[in-house]
């Protein structure tokens, strides 16, 4: 947003650092003035805390603050995800109920490719030789059928040492109903092997469905050494340089956690990538009073869709990393293989396809001149004049327009006997169709209508296609946030501390459940408040929110239903019937739903930063260029984002350029730059051709 140093000596700064694969993004907020600054520095993959420190030092220099002015450091990291994807994991072992050692390997045994002649690869993080069965058995109601024998556990401890395990996951049947056996196993192993890291499933993901719970616990176990060691290095590095502010880690649920908690529950960081962007969307939704948003992030290889409904980011209770289920609350995200690098081609029957195969960053699109020869969505955009080859990445990278045209011509236009421009526009249109389908399906699953939503677009490749995608879905408005290059970090500035606690409660949601629910609420709330106090959150900033996962008897899927307390059970049930009707077009008000889980979020509210208006520009275009759109060439003005004049109404077609993104406002759209920095595009009514 700004690069001018203005931080005064006395005021405190809040900093969010988002470490991605290539860049470490920083957002620095002056808490007194509400003005924020963006900074980027290269990521240091071998130890990302090094790049983090470098970024902080550079920012301190640029924006004139000292480390003792930092009030809070919020840290988003893909270290957990990358460790799994790159298999940089320690040697781990798994303890299960005897007879169920293979559950992790069997999984749910459903294939994705229906007519495949060779089975798809399945991720297996702990091999058979390091999975151990323990004679014991808890039943579905939590009663013990076969008691634990401490001697067996001691014998197992020896086997753990023998197989070289540094970390162990314990996942026993029905431990969500009664954690006694798992706790005992952990206790004895800890006594025998004090160095061993231990994750037990009743602590990590206390929900029924043994495969999903086991998978989550295994991931947690394998990540404990990875994340624990990283946080130790980070802490040491920061302390060495005089940074003593509290550090918080961004979790998959959009909230943050203390390093201590993150080291114990590293699986909660696994899908935290989208959290920052989703939080940013939520913040902007409130700022603009536009409470229903579809947030889309179009990068080089993928397109991520998340939802803000009624001002709140949609969460789900399960996700997946590299085919391994992660049964934990997280920001809901639908990802499809559509990005700037998506490859276009033809099949043997004269059909045209776009993606999901991607040229990625290497070799990249043909126009990158890095050896990529196949046409991509970016090549189509260059061909259509929508990307300026001389101003890509703010001019940092020069693109080869001839190579782009050549690739589109050779691979697609010639075999399909189409014009070059017609082909390039077709590639963009198909990419838009895929993206629109992904959005429609995301909304559709919840019985929501795209027309009730506005689109908020970020990511380097998104700005060129956002208005077309919205139009495809009859959405009337598109929001382009400021600083799209560091938006994720910006969103993190607004995060709160969030502890998610769950208790499996399989029973009917009627008066008979109240006593048990009240007991559970007492236990969960005591634990939640204890954790918030341990985080140093003042009592007035502690907040507890409950949901019940309800379903009709026998259903596979539960609906998270807001729930206040046990006196409120009847109205929660009524809400469930309504939600079911809204989402699935049928309900059965005569049926008593089943409770599956009671969930509690313990929120520690962190002070919210002030916002400040941006400086308005003079509104003068940098120049004009020809772009191809709707089957013809147009001469359109090119305006630098920074020179936009706030509050004025502009009409498409026009192009807005900024450092990491280009925005296309098509001819039937208008654009208003807001004083708060967002650009708002509206479809022009009555010009629907």
């Amino acid at each position, binding site marked *: 947003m700004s690069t001018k140093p203005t931080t005064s000596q006395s005021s405190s700064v809040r900093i969010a650092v988002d470490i991605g694969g290539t860049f470490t993004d920083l957002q620095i907020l002056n808490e007194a003035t509400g003005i924020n600054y963006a900074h980027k520095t290269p990521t240091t993959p071998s130890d990302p805390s090094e790049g983090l420190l470098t970024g902080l030092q550079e920012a301190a220099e640029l924006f004139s603050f000292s480390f003792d002015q930092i009030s809070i450091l919020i840290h988003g990291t893909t270290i957990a995800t990358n460790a799994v994807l790159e298999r940089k994991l320690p040697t781990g072992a798994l303890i299960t109920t005897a007879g169920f050692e293979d559950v992790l390997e069997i999984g749910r045994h459903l294939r994705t490719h229906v007519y495949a*002649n060779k089975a798809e690869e399945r991720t297996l993080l702990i091999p058979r*030789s390091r999975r151990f069965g323990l004679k014991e058995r808890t039943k579905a109601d939590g009663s013990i059928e076969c008691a634990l024998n401490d001697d067996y556990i001691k014998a197992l401890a020896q086997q753990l040492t023998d197989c070289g395990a540094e970390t162990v996951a314990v996942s026993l049947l029905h431990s969500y109903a009664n954690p006694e056996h798992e706790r005992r196993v952990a206790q004895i192993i800890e006594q025998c092997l004090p160095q061993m890291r231990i994750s037990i499933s009743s602590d990590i993901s206390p929900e*029924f469905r043994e495969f999903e719970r086991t998978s989550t616990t295994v991931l947690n176990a394998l990540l404990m050494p990875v994340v624990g060691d990283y946080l130790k290095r980070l802490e040491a590095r920061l302390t060495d340089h005089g940074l003593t502010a509290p550090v918080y880690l961004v979790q998959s649920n959009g909230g943050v956690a203390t390093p201590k908690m993150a080291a114990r529950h590293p699986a909660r960081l696994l899908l935290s990538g989208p959290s920052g962007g989703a939080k940013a969307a939520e913040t902007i939704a409130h700022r603009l009073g536009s409470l229903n948003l579809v947030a889309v992030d179009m990068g080089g290889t993928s397109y991520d869709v998340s939802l803000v409904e009624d001002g709140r980011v949609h969460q789900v209770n399960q996700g997946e990393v590299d085919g391994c289920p992660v049964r934990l609350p997280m920001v809901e995200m639908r990802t499809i293989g559509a990005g700037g690098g998506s490859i276009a081609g033809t*099949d043997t*029957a004269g*059909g045209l396809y*776009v993606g999901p195969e991607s040229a990625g960053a290497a070799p990249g699109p043909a126009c990158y001149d890095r050896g990529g020869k196949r046409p991509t969505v970016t090549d189509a955009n260059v061909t259509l004049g929508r990307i300026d080859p001389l101003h890509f990445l703010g001019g940092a990278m020069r693109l080869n327009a001839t190579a782009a045209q050549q690739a589109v011509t050779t691979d697609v236009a010639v075999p399909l006997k189409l014009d070059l421009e017609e082909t390039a526009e077709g590639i963009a249109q198909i990419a838009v169709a895929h993206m629109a*389908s992904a959005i429609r399906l995301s909304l559709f699953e919840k019985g929501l209508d795209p027309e009730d939503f506005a689109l908020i677009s970020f990511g380097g490749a998104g700005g060129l296609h956002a208005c077309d995608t919205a139009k495809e879905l009859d959405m009337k408005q598109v929001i382009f946030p400021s600083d799209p290059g560091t938006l994720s970090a910006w969103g993190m500035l607004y995060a709160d501390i969030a502890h998610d606690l769950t208790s499996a409660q399989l029973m009917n949601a009627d008066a008979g459940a109240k006593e048990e629910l009240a007991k559970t609420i007492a236990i969960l709330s005591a634990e939640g408040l204890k954790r918030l106090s341990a985080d140093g959150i003042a009592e007035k900033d502690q907040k507890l929110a409950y949901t019940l996962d309800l379903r009709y008897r*026998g259903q596979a899927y539960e609906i998270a239903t807001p729930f206040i307390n046990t006196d409120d059970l009847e109205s929660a049930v009524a809400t469930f019937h309504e939600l079911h009707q809204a989402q*699935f077009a049928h309900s059965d008000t005569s049926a008593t739903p089943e409770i599956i889980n009671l969930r509690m979020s313990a929120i520690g509210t962190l002070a919210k930063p002030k916002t400040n208006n941006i400086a308005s520009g003079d509104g003068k275009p940098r120049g004009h260029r020809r772009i191809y759109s709707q089957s013809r060439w147009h001469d359109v003005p090119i305006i630098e984002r920074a020179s936009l004049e706030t509050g004025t109404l502009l009409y498409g077609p026009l192009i807005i350029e900024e450092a990491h993104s280009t925005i296309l406002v098509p001819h039937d759209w208008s654009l208003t730059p807001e004083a708060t920095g967002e650009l708002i595009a509206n479809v022009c009514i009555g010009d629907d051709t």
Partner: protein
Amino acid sequence: MSSLNAVQIEIIRNALVSAAEEMSVTIWRTSRSSVVREILDYSTCVFDANGQSVAQAARMPVHLNSMAACLEDLINHHIPITEWHDGDVIITNDPYSGGQHLPDIQTFRPVFHEGRRIAIAGILVHHLDVGGGAPGSYYAEATEIYQEGLCIPPLKIVEGGKRNEAVVKMLLANTREPVNVGGDFSSQLAALETGALTLQRIGKRYGAERLANACERIQAASETQTRAVFAEIPNGVYEFEDFVDDDGIELDRKLRINARLIVDDDSVEVDLSQSSSQAKGPVNCTFNMTRSAVICGALMAIGREVPANAGCYRPISVIAPLGSVVNARHPAPVANRMAVGHRIVNAVMGAFAQAVPERVPASYYGVSYAYALSANNADGSRQVYFDLECGGWGGHPDGDGANGFSCGFHNISNTPIEMIENDYPLTFLRYGLVPNSGGEGKSRGGLGLVREFRLDAPEGTFAANLDRFKIAPYGLEGGEPGRVGQLIMRRSGSDTEEILASKVAGLNMKTGDIIRLETAGGGGHGNPKDRSKSDISDDLFEGYTT
């Protein structure tokens, strides 16, 4: 109307696939029973105005290929297309009217735009129970279809938007699980409405004419691609046969499935004439089922992805004589038609292996392992636990077969043990891989699975429709066959293992009795002597072999 270009066709294709996916999502999220909700035994499909399939949600080969044939049968022989009106839903589960077996209820809804039919949405759901001689409607001793449950002939279950409650009542009065089946059925109809709405939107956007044109071109493209793949296969006649153990009634009569594959340039014919005459027991296939199996075997054997729609079916023709196990005559029983169905897939793939040995893997387990336990609780209530399992994949020319993974004609998910134990009076003792069950070979066959459980209710009745207990999944190119499966009963308090037959009808159980099911491993591929030393030692170390 200007003709559509490749861009517009791809955009319409994408929209049609979305329609099928939206129906699929609706069923998954709203259904009631474990068959649907965890095993995912259902499929959704979009057909063009004439009933030719054009898009489907990838799920279950057995359903997808045969729904089109069922629809064709309905239109040609039962309810002429001129009588399909807006707001109607046509239903059937009759195997002799294009269906598969009675639990699979198929529903079709025509979709109109400006008074013109533009598409048909179709959904098939395997329902938990439709009556008959055994829980789950898998009655292994049936000798006539009348013993297998309620047959719904082709009729309008919804007419002009109004549900025929009389038929629904009749259906629910004939199932052991009225609540689950009623819930699943509502979800099936709701999902059809979802599909219809999306298709109407597509119709409005593109117009009937362009949509029809796009459908035609999408099917033609798939046909072209499929023909191109067949053209790579050397012309000739290739033959392979495989067997079903027995039909559960005549225990010493193994059933032959003989596939004669005739490759003629860019089309193939599969002649099953030398297969056994129809069986007394319920393992028979009606013709649609057989055709579906042949298509599945062919598409799997070629090892190339082609878009699955009516177009890719066109270059494949099937010959199956009436009165044979691959084209049974009414009223032969068909509940366990998957026994012959899987074997047709095995035989067809085996025939392709003669032609293109470098592409085709050895035999997969080839059984749906359907079993049901009806538990009688102390309070007089009854619950039916139904489940399906899978086994090992055949070794592939390029590598080992997968352990315990869905393959071939079906595609199923397992039911979590914790979910079963919460819902039914059962306790599981084991769920795991069966060491040494994969056929040896340069590429080893995948391992089968073992599932063992105990009845905790006072009494129960067990039924199973299994196979490959006698005839093992074949190896190829010198690979050994996979190990056969088995079913074992251990009575409460006894150590004696009682070996059961592959087809079990109404076996009485008491508290504490234990059932153990072991599924087959896949066949091996290539000479076991050529297996690398490191692969052999890895297998031993991990305990895949002992």
